[in-house]
């Protein structure tokens, strides 16, 4: 049966250097349930070590956790990649790590904590996760697609690291599945501001870096189940699947 799912398809954990330490897996899941979300996609900057723990923390709760990553392209554009399972995420992770230079400086950029579903610190990611990969936006979208994932242009309305701010316009040759809006003007405001993007579906996500931000922006999506293939159908508006608020 097709029904509405409340989706926040872009949330961070304490693994992201710019996120608060209190956004660890169990806290994240607790807040997502409080916000009555049905689906979240966990997308840390260029990393994914906390994703399995968020999935475990959500087990039995009714919340679907989609494995994801917010990847920084060579052009310093942020791309949200969302998958159905951990195995393609692991493959994109290997690609990203092969092309992500530098080591983190915790003092300056922030802590990158790997925390399990019992709130225990498993370790720290020492790579420069705020850095940019050496992969072009085009290459990244192609790789995400070939692994069966969804590629969403992150926070397009933002001046820093959104595709519009960094590159000026959306190259129609890059097959983004959707545009993400995370600012206060919402998708209605973004529709007015970017009439040239009329052909893309818009989703609203919180891009939460703090627990309190989870679910502050979300998208109602009519699906049969919370999977990537269902999301693709909803983005295309076919077979009775569709996005509500955009």
């Amino acid at each position, binding site marked *: 049966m097709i029904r509405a799912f409340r989706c926040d398809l872009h949330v961070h954990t304490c693994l992201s250097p*710019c996120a608060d330490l209190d956004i660890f897996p169990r806290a994240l899941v607790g807040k997502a349930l409080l916000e009555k979300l049905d689906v979240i996609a966990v997308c840390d900057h260029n990393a994914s070590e906390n994703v399995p723990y968020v999935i475990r923390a959500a087990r039995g709760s009714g919340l679907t956790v989609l494995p994801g990553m917010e990847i920084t392209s060579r052009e*310093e554009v942020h791309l949200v990649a969302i998958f159905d399972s951990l195995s393609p995420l692991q493959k994109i992770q290997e690609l990203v790590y092969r092309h992500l230079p*530098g080591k983190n*400086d915790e003092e*300056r*950029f922030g802590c990158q904590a790997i925390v399990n579903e019992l709130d225990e610190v498993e370790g720290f990611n020492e790579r420069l996760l*705020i*850095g940019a990969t050496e992969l072009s936006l085009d290459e990244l979208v192609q790789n995400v697609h070939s692994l069966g994932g969804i590629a969403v242009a992150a926070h397009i309305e933002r*001046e*820093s690291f959104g595709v519009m701010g960094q590159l000026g316009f959306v190259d129609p040759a890059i097959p983004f599945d959707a545009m993400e809006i995370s600012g206060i003007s919402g998708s209605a405001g973004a529709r007015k501001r970017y009439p040239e993007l009329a052909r893309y579906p818009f989703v609203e996500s919180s891009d939460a870096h703090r627990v309190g931000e989870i679910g502050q922006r979300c998208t109602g999506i009519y699906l049969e189940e919370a999977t990537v293939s269902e999301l693709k159908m909803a983005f295309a508006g076919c077979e009775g699947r569709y996005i509500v608020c955009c």
Partner: protein
Amino acid sequence: MNLEEIVKSLHLKVKYGEGILNVDVRGGYVGDLLSDVMANSHKGDLLITRQIHQNIVAVASLNELVGIVLVQGAEPAAETLEKAAKEKIPLLVADLPAFEVAGRIYRMLETPETQPM
């Protein structure tokens, strides 16, 4: 060349850094891509950029840059200003575009008035 002289000469707005502008500017770097700035700017440089994200301050601190000039009247994000104060990195705003800011500062560094002719 002293940063304070550059601030006065180019009429830069001091968003953060009053009282700590008495530092020596050895050179400059222009860039909006943080990965590029991180890889290629040097200690003692003044960063000239249109990027307003707080990571400009982290990069400036990491590479021991003496300050940041935002061009084209760009307003720093709130977190950027907070971070500049925390890291004690002067954050300045020029109304001019990057080309002119860089050109003027370059000329000042090449031919300081105090230099004997």
